[in-house]
């Protein structure tokens, strides 16, 4: 994406008041209590164990730690996580892991 394009997009967002995930490739994360987590617009699974789950995003990654984590289903860009979720850490692309 060119610089002008990016700026144009940012400006459109500002003017039209559209949600960010529609226009930019940002994930939409829904958390229901500490039991369920829905992530849309993900880019795959990076690490997978019952204690920790790392999910790749368009920019950066999402680290979920908890107990008895399990991916309930994966459908294209959607992913549902079930278990006892303790911690969610969003790592932007700028941030070095």
């Amino acid at each position: 994406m060119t610089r002008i394009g990016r700026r144009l997009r940012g400006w459109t967002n500002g003017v039209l008041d559209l949600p960010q995930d529609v226009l930019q490739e940002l994930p939409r994360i829904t958390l229901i209590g500490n039991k369920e987590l829905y992530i849309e617009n993900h880019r795959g699974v990076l690490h997978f164990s019952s204690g920790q789950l790392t999910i790749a995003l368009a920019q950066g990654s999402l680290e979920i730690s908890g107990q008895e984590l399990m991916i309930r289903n994966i459908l294209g860009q959607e992913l549902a996580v079930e278990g006892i979720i303790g911690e969610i850490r969003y790592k932007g692309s700028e941030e070095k892991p």
Partner: protein
Amino acid sequence: MKEPPLSSLRGFVTLHVTGPAVEKFINAVTEAGIVIWEVKPAGNGASLNLLLDDFFSLRPLLKKTGCRVHVTARSGLPFRLARLWRRKLFAGGILLFGVMLLLFCSMVWTVRIEGNQRIASDDLLAAARQEGIYPFQWIWRMDEPDKLSKRLTSRIPGLSWVGVERTGTSITIQVVEADQPEKRPLLSQRHLVSRTDAVVTGIYAEQGRPVVGINSRVKKGQILISGALGDEENIEYVVAKGEVKGLVWHEYNIEVPLKTTSSSYTGERKDRTYLVIGDWAVQLWGYGKSGFSKSRTLTENNMLSWRSLQLPLGVMTEKELEISYASSVKTEEEAREEGIARAKSDILARYGTDSTIKSQKILHEKKDNGKVYMKVLFEVEERIAEELPIVNN
């Protein structure tokens, strides 16, 4: 959404994936558009569910990521069917049972006929069979009940209505028979002759030729209405029918006692019950004396029997009924009246209730030994015709 729709119908497998990069495998699977669910870390890999259809497209992905899969569970209809297929006889039995049940349910088992009195059930059943109603007939091969009833009505004469009703596997044919005129009895050719000596007072010939006139004297056995028509050469015999009335004399010897004693039950009774064993009778109930001055005892024996065999065991009941006697004395006049009334009712009973007593005459009367003796002559108008069959030989 937890799992794809109808996954249990389409069949799915639970896989255990091991390898250096399980995550890569999961990503590859997702990218390939394969739906997986219940991805759980297990052991040193992960377990996941996958539709059976997608299982065979896993192979290139496995090769690419260097993972190994191990099927831990198979569930869903295709696997069940496969398991059933291994027990073909059992599965066949289940199928056969279902099919047989279905077939037997769609079969007529009983045909019942209701409401017939004159027409034999067998005839009706035979007619129904012609229309396709019989046991072990397929229900779907039979016609509509209303059509069947219409055709049965036209097939069997003497029926005014037929209703065919099917309840489950039994068929009820309800029948209403048409009213038919009464059949006239078959009669043989005959004359009507006089039963007794009489004087004819009326003659009416319904069929045949009257040969005597009114006021003519007839002897016993004389032909009154002849069943022979025509002359000597052209003769035809018919059934003579008609009514002939005549005056007949009856002589009655009547005796009436003046003093009569009659007994009647007072209604008081005493019952005794005995148990009978062989020749022995043991009284069970009704001890004590009745205290009746005059009584009549009725004994009833109820012996046990098995089939035609009489057992020497039973119950005997004795009913002692009290009786009272009443005597009455009649006058001579009353006795005469009673005697004549008795004779008249005897005439009516003997010669028909349409007989009329024209006159009565006491020929002789005497009183002796407390009785009245009478000789009475009655002149009665009564039917005198009697049938005499014509024998041609």
